[in-house]
């Protein structure tokens, strides 16, 4: 329709496409797939907003869990997975505690993240965490500032983790390699860096 009217503004055209979202862009299998992963009644959302109202991320970011629940009900796979807000959930489970329909929105987000990962849509900073774990066994490895604080507090310079026992690192790497997580992370990061 938008095309037929011939708006010359490409941004406007992109926006107007949206009105057919439930036909052209909807993938009913997506709702089902999320259900199978999240094991919650994700299709029962009635959009009351209790989740966003409960969300500690919402007042501080553009993350709106209710919108993701809506996209999920409507099967809007691409729109859900390509929205970087998907990764702003802290998984605190406040929304899950309070949802009057007894849905677990947190698990829906986690399921969508898993599907996004399968499709290689993951923000680079998350993948760098994977690389960090692979290197050091820590998502956030110890650093010199921390070490100084620890020493001042009378603690050992490094915590009793892989930092102190690097002989356990191969085991961790084996687990990561088994699922090819590092491999995939490297690939996506390289691609992202190539595109600037």
């Amino acid at each position, binding site marked *: 329709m938008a095309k037929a009217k011939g708006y010359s503004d490409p941004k406007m055209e992109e926006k107007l496409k949206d009105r057919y979202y439930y036909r052209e862009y909807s993938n009913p299998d997506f709702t089902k797939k999320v259900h199978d992963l999240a094991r919650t009644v994700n299709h*029962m959302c*009635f*959009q*009351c*907003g*209790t*989740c*966003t*109202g*409960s*969300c500690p991320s*919402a*007042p501080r970011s553009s993350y*709106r869990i*209710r*919108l993701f629940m809506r996209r999920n009900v409507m099967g809007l796979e691409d729109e859900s997975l390509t929205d970087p807000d998907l990764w702003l959930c802290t998984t605190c489970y*406040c929304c899950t*505690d*309070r*949802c*009057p*329909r*007894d849905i677990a929105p947190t698990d829906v987000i986690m399921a969508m993240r898993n599907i996004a990962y399968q499709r290689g849509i993951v923000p680079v900073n998350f993948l760098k965490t994977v690389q960090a774990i692979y290197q050091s066994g820590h998502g956030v490895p110890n650093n010199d500032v921390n070490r100084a604080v620890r020493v001042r507090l009378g603690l050992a310079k490094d915590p009793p983790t892989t930092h102190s026992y690097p002989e356990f690192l191969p085991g961790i790497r084996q687990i990561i390699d088994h699922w090819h997580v590092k491999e995939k992370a490297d690939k996506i990061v390289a691609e992202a860096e190539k595109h600037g």
Partner: protein
Amino acid sequence: MADTKSKVKETKAKVTDQKPRIGVFVCHCGTNIAGVVDVKAIIEYAKTVPNVVHAEDYQYVCSTPGQKKITDAIKEKNLTGTVVAACSPRLHEPTFRRATKEGGLNPFRFEMANIREQGTWVHMHDPAGATEKAKDAIRIAVAKASLLEDLTPKSVAVEHAAMVVGAGIAGMQAALDLANAGIKTYLVEKLPSIGGRMSQLDKTFPTLDCSQCILTPKMVDVGRAENIELLTYHEVDAVEGFIGNFDVTLRKKANGVLSMAEAEAKGISGGGCNGCGDCEPVCPVIKPNPFEMGMKPRKAIYIYHPQVVPLLYTIDFDSCIKCGLCVTACGEKKAIDLEMKDELRKVKVGTVVLALGYDMFPVENKREWGYKQFDNVVNSLELERLICASGPTAGHLIRPSDGQTPKRVAFVLCAGSRDNTGIGKPYCSRFCCMYSLKHAHQIIEKIPGVIPYIFYMDIRSFGKMYEEFYYRIQDEGAKFIRGRVANILEDPVTKNLHVYAEDTMLNRPIDLEVDMVVLAAAVQPAADTDRTRKLFGVSCSQDGWLLEAHPKLNPCGTTTAGVFVAGVCQGPKDIPDTVAQAEGAASAASIPIHIGKVELEPYFAQCIEEKCAGCGMCVNLCPYSALSLVDKEGGGKVMQVTEAKCKGCGTCGGFCPGGAIWMQHFATPQVIAQIDAFLLGGAK
């Protein structure tokens, strides 16, 4: 009751004195049945079943031409029994019995095979399986129909009196209607005054008339009606009997005060409570008044509010210290009896209307909204008292923490309703949207500059003039925020509240600071509902509300004949719907009383005397006290059935060690024949 005692059965040999000739009629029910199963195949099969001499199908057997097919076939083919394979007997058994009777057979020679509810509806995706199941159902029904015997329904007289349990607006309306129809009506109320929840309300939506102003005339009518015997502070203790003859034991709870009539009866001339109230000021015990939601004190001797009916003081013996000061204050009237005990009393009624009402859901269970944690979070019934001229603040809305007038008030709708978490209620409480709109209007009217914020998911303004009322309140300046409240926190210094929600229309999370929060809490069945309904043998639906006989076509009846329901105890409803249902229930309850007799299905047990050993073991098993042991001619004992009490449950028949009990219409040979027909597969 003597005429309904059974003659002891002599022999059952005559049941099969004639070779059975059965006609089978298969209904298409439009496409409900024919759209799934192969009707032609079923007819062909039916013709091969033993004893079947006639089989045909028709689009709607319940229609007039369909019924004519039954009557015609009975006459032409000289049938001894009929089988209709169609819907559930709940719907059309009476129809086909009538058709069987018109054909010249006893109506109990009819048997129904349910191939729709238990066939094509549940197996709609398995036509072949449904067809086979229908064949089985027909074969089984034919087996029973071949052994059916002639039965005659018994009729019993109906007591010309009714009982209404609960004297809220529903119970009062039902009692007034019954009384005006010339029926003696006992109106039973567990509290000291009639009026119920409606008497606690300030105004009513959408007309905004004062609740007490429209209610008190009815209360006075009830108090004065000649045909109504008002039994306040009474509870139902036990129920025996059946439609037409309910024997109800009532407990008159000790209220410690003699009414004028009671005093007269005790020979205290001119004495008894006249409601002067001299006793109240001297009473040293102070308790919260539940009528004011605990926000106003009352004494141990009290009335709830000035307009109580009957105007009679009540002593709360749980808190009374029996100091006797009130007795002195009462003086010559001698109305107070501190040693009064509960009394039991039996009344006999023909029909009963249950109007048991509702309680507020304990919304403190939803901890995120802070009810009972934060001073300024109240529920809507508390707000109702806080804005009522006769309430604890004489109608001045103040917030509980500091007595200040609130300027920003948040209303939380669906507080515990539409909640599938298991903590709240899954249903819509139905009147909260409208009363919250009304509350918004009332505070705008009372407090200049106040802003009501209404947090809602959907505004359900479904009644007459309700949507117009919504329009009006929005026009008056109420702010509507489409989003369910996620949680509420209190500022510990100011006692103001922070309401967290999402404005889902703007995709924007909100942190709104307000002076007061009103939770439109869900409603739930009144505390005593479960006990009372069990006494009357009434079922409840999964959420605890009383179960109506049919949600659309019999909304006032229950599955227990002679017991009817009215008002919120059957499901949340507003005042107009409650009154309408009460009038419906009263009308339905008056029908058997006016007819004067009811027909009972002849499904009662019979004793075969020559087999009965007189052991009496069945007597104690009977849940309805319908059996007794009597002396037999020529010595010994024999069991006897009071047919009007027997509900045909079959407990005795299944148990009797000598096989001496014959369950009419469900006799052992009939049931065995059905099982055989099923297991042995019949002739294929």
